[in-house]
């Protein structure tokens, strides 16, 4: 039982990070019909921004982390939108999808070429202590690290802050309006272009948060975006492609499931978990757990 609780807590911690990436993915889809297959690389890259800041500029970790978030908003937000999405959007969804796949390869290989092909240790915001009961510490008993709890709290707080912003501020509601019906939003005078830009900035910030939280656990590596991108994509689909809260649920679900499968079945199957979910959901409930069926006018 203690094993199970530990695994669920670890799963919630990774799940919260997956949820950050999945929420950003969903937001981009909703407001700009961008299916970003580079989302995993977007989560991989900011950790290297921070590492580069510390290594080449000698910045202390907190400053480097903050710089990484800002730089991510600039590059993964503004640059991504203006250089790739805006010009290609007019050509339809598919060319944009393929471009994001190309971008993923570019980012992956770029980091490998210019930084390192080795997995990098990454500092954590949280102290490395075990919060488990003293008697069990180090044994087979109850082990929960401050790191896991810290990740869970920070990621959840980020999501709650975003949810609050979207539902409780006028700008947030204009963003929701843009996501739900851009034409009508424009007719009412909403500055749709600005709302879409906000979405890209938020996605950049969410990806950076996810990156800073996950890299201490799984190390920073050029190839880590492959799994993360898949998880974000599947979490978004499992939860319902058009629902932010669906993406949150999907992220947590996959986080918990892959920890449980790794422990009780085999860690070899860990990567199969998101794919199994994907197949199951598409077969049983194609609109996703919380999604609504989308009608498409021809």
């Amino acid at each position, binding site marked *: 039982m203690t094993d199970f609780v530990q695994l669920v807590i670890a799963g919630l911690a990774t799940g919260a990070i997956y949820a950050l990436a999945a929420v950003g993915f969903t937001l981009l889809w909703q407001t700009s019909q961008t299916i970003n297959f580079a989302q995993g690389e977007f989560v991989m890259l900011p950790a290297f921004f921070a590492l580069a800041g510390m290594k080449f500029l000698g910045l202390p970790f907190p400053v480097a982390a903050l710089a990484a978030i800002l730089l991510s908003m600039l590059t993964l937000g503004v640059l991504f939108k203006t250089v790739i999405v805006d010009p290609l959007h007019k050509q339809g969804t598919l060319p944009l999808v393929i471009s994001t796949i190309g971008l993923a390869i570019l980012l992956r290989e770029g980091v490998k070429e210019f930084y390192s092909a080795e997995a990098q240790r990454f500092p954590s915001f949280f102290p490395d202590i075990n919060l488990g009961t003293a008697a069990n510490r180090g044994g087979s008993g109850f082990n929960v690290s401050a790191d896991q709890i810290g990740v869970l709290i920070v990621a959840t707080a980020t999501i709650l802050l975003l949810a609050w912003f979207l539902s409780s501020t*006028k700008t947030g509601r204009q963003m929701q*309006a843009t996501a*739900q*019906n851009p034409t*009508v*939003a424009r*007719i009412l*005078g909403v*500055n749709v272009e600005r709302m879409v830009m906000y979405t890209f900035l938020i996605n950049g910030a969410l990806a950076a948060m996810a990156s800073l939280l996950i890299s201490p656990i799984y190390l920073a590596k050029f190839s880590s975006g492959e799994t993360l991108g898949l998880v974000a994509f599947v979490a978004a689909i499992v939860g319902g492609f058009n629902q932010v809260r669906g993406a949150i649920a999907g992220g947590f679900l996959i986080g918990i499931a892959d920890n449980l499968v790794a422990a009780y079945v085999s860690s070899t199957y860990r990567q199969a978990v998101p794919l199994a979910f994907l197949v199951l959901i598409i077969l049983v409930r194609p609109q996703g757990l919380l999604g*609504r069926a989308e009608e498409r006018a021809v």
Partner: protein
Amino acid sequence: MANPDTILSLDNVVSGYGKMTILNGTSAHIRRGKITTVIGPNGAGKSTLFKTVFGLLAVRTGKIEFGGRDTTNWSPRQMLDAGMCYVPQGRNIFPELSVRHNLELGGVALADPSGLPARIESMMQRFPMLSEKANAQASTLSGGQQKLLEVARGLLLEPRLMLIDEPSIGLSPLMVQEVFGILKGLRDNGVTILLIEQNAKMALQMSDYGLVLEQGQTRIEDTAPNILADPRIAELFLGGGLKPAITA
């Protein structure tokens, strides 16, 4: 425009989608404070006319004047500021936002946002249904209630002219009467209504003027009773098209 009764005029307007030209030199004069119904067969360019006037489609050639100003190729935001609102065809609510927040979005273009809460309150008094459902998700409203919400949202800026496209689609006859009643009430308060209706006869019966479009051009501009009595209209709607000799 010289005539002070005209609030909106189109002069030889050409517009369309991509390579397709829909409005093919459309001219029209819409009377201030009246209901004008635009009728015409499918593909005549009725909805395109609205989108072009409201700045959602570019005017290629020609000129649009609204309230004495040249508004050719103004943006929707500029048209809102000039006193026009547009209620498109179909469902135009934000389904996952509450009724109150849907209404609030009608005030985005308000120059002074501090007046917004009072406007929302007065709109809710005018339409008590909106007040009862204020906190419900808009998707839970019936089709007719959604249309009322759209109209109320459009009225939040106190427009001088409302473009409303096929408001009766999918509504019960009773609800259609209610929506038409609201439009008449607006007209009586000085708001100009430009209406598109598939049910041309019913719409013309409550209109002051009618505008018959065919193939992107104005074929008839007259009072509603005259159009209702015009034998050519039946012919047009039976798909025959107007005989060129008759158009003068």
